[in-house]
């Protein structure tokens, strides 16, 4: 490992790491929000709307992120959507992950025992109250592991953003490799950087999972 090269490029690698974290977190928040909205809308008794949402989910899950990102970034300007690379990257990550999050939330809603809802109705709770105080806590508690898993997957998908010149970690690594011809060092450095990133995300995720599950269980029983 040539540490001199790594040391020389360290500032740009750290900056790239920052951009990776920014895109990952902003994209995830966007994806969670859209995914949740899709799952909620999907519960409305309106078949055409549900077909539309189904198509949305299937298209985004059925095509590679790289292809989606490229169509959004290169094709966007033709329909008047002119985004900077980073904005397109965040929006792309958000749209892509929203399909997966929508499915996770849908499964979460499906996991709520019908008896609980019937019980809530029989004690006279309003539909809004039932959603807020019964369905959601139970649904969310059961989805936490799947959400954490998806967040881990997303943190690795950010490498694709380098293709549209988002100055994230992979992009900076490639710059280093191209300028110094140290391809093997870059492969090594990438393996270590991403492993650390994913390990950190997984660990924080597990801790969050334990806390949230306990909190949700308490809320649900309160």
């Amino acid at each position, binding site marked *: 490992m040539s540490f001199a090269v790594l040391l020389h490029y360290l500032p740009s690698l750290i900056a790239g790491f920052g951009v990776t974290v920014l895109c990952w977190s902003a994209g995830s928040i966007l994806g969670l929000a859209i995914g949740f909205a899709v799952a909620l809308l999907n519960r409305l008794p309106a078949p055409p709307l549900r077909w539309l949402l189904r198509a949305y989910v*299937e298209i985004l899950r*059925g095509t590679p992120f790289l292809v989606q990102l490229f169509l959004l970034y290169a094709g966007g300007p033709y329909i008047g959507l002119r985004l900077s690379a980073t904005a397109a990257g965040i929006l792309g990550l958000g749209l892509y992950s929203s399909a997966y999050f929508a499915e996770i939330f849908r499964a979460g809603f499906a996991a709520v025992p019908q008896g609980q809802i019937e019980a809530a109705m029989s004690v006279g709770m309003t539909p809004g109250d039932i959603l807020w105080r019964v369905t959601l806590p139970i649904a969310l508690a059961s989805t936490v592991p799947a959400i954490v898993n998806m967040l881990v997957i997303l943190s690795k998908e950010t490498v694709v953003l380098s293709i549209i010149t988002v100055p994230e970690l992979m992009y900076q690594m490639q710059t280093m490799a191209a300028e110094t011809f140290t391809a*093997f060092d870059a492969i090594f450095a990438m*393996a270590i950087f991403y492993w650390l990133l994913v390990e950190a995300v997984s660990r924080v995720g597990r801790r969050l999972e334990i806390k949230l599950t306990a909190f949700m269980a308490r809320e649900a029983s309160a």
Partner: protein
Amino acid sequence: MRFDIILHSLGYLLRAAAVTVALSLAGIALGFVIGALVCAARRSGDRFLRRLGGFYVSFFRGVPLLVQLLFIYYFLAEYGLDVPAVVAAIGGLGLASGAYQAEILRGALNATPAGQAEAATALGFAPFDIWRRILLPQALRIAAPPLINEFILLLKASSLVSVVGIAELTRVSMNIASMTYRPFEAYLAGGMIYLAINLCLAAFGAFAERRLAAGGST
């Protein structure tokens, strides 16, 4: 939009799609074998094996597939181990997918009530029979939807094997984009083919899920 360009290259795209499907099938099969072994290690009584299984999952889920492929194909060759491109591609996909499949199988086995295995032991079932007739059928039923999902993810991830010089679907879409200077049409065509394959897979998944569920109720 110039779709005559796509029509000109349709055969090229479809051949590449076949490569993508074949590599993914081989990768998912290899991944299942590795996943079952790693899952067994993680559930074994031996602490060292459990640790080893845990490390495997952490490493192969943590390092991006792209980096794994570069390592197998180029880095090993620098030190005398010349892995052919197809082997590197299937091996890379299988090793990475093995980590995910191990976790899927582990989750499914955890969801199978422990009392059942105990009851079977009490009834005098041999350990292998308990696995084959009680644990595995139930675990597979639980694991079927996430396994299909993993297949879809792997199929999309297989776009990365172009780094070892294999002309799969994404690579060919890019080749067409560069030859025609019409990236939008080329990527759209590639995306549609991915979508078609994955919709077939999802339909198969739904079918298998129904069959397995029906089998469980009898």
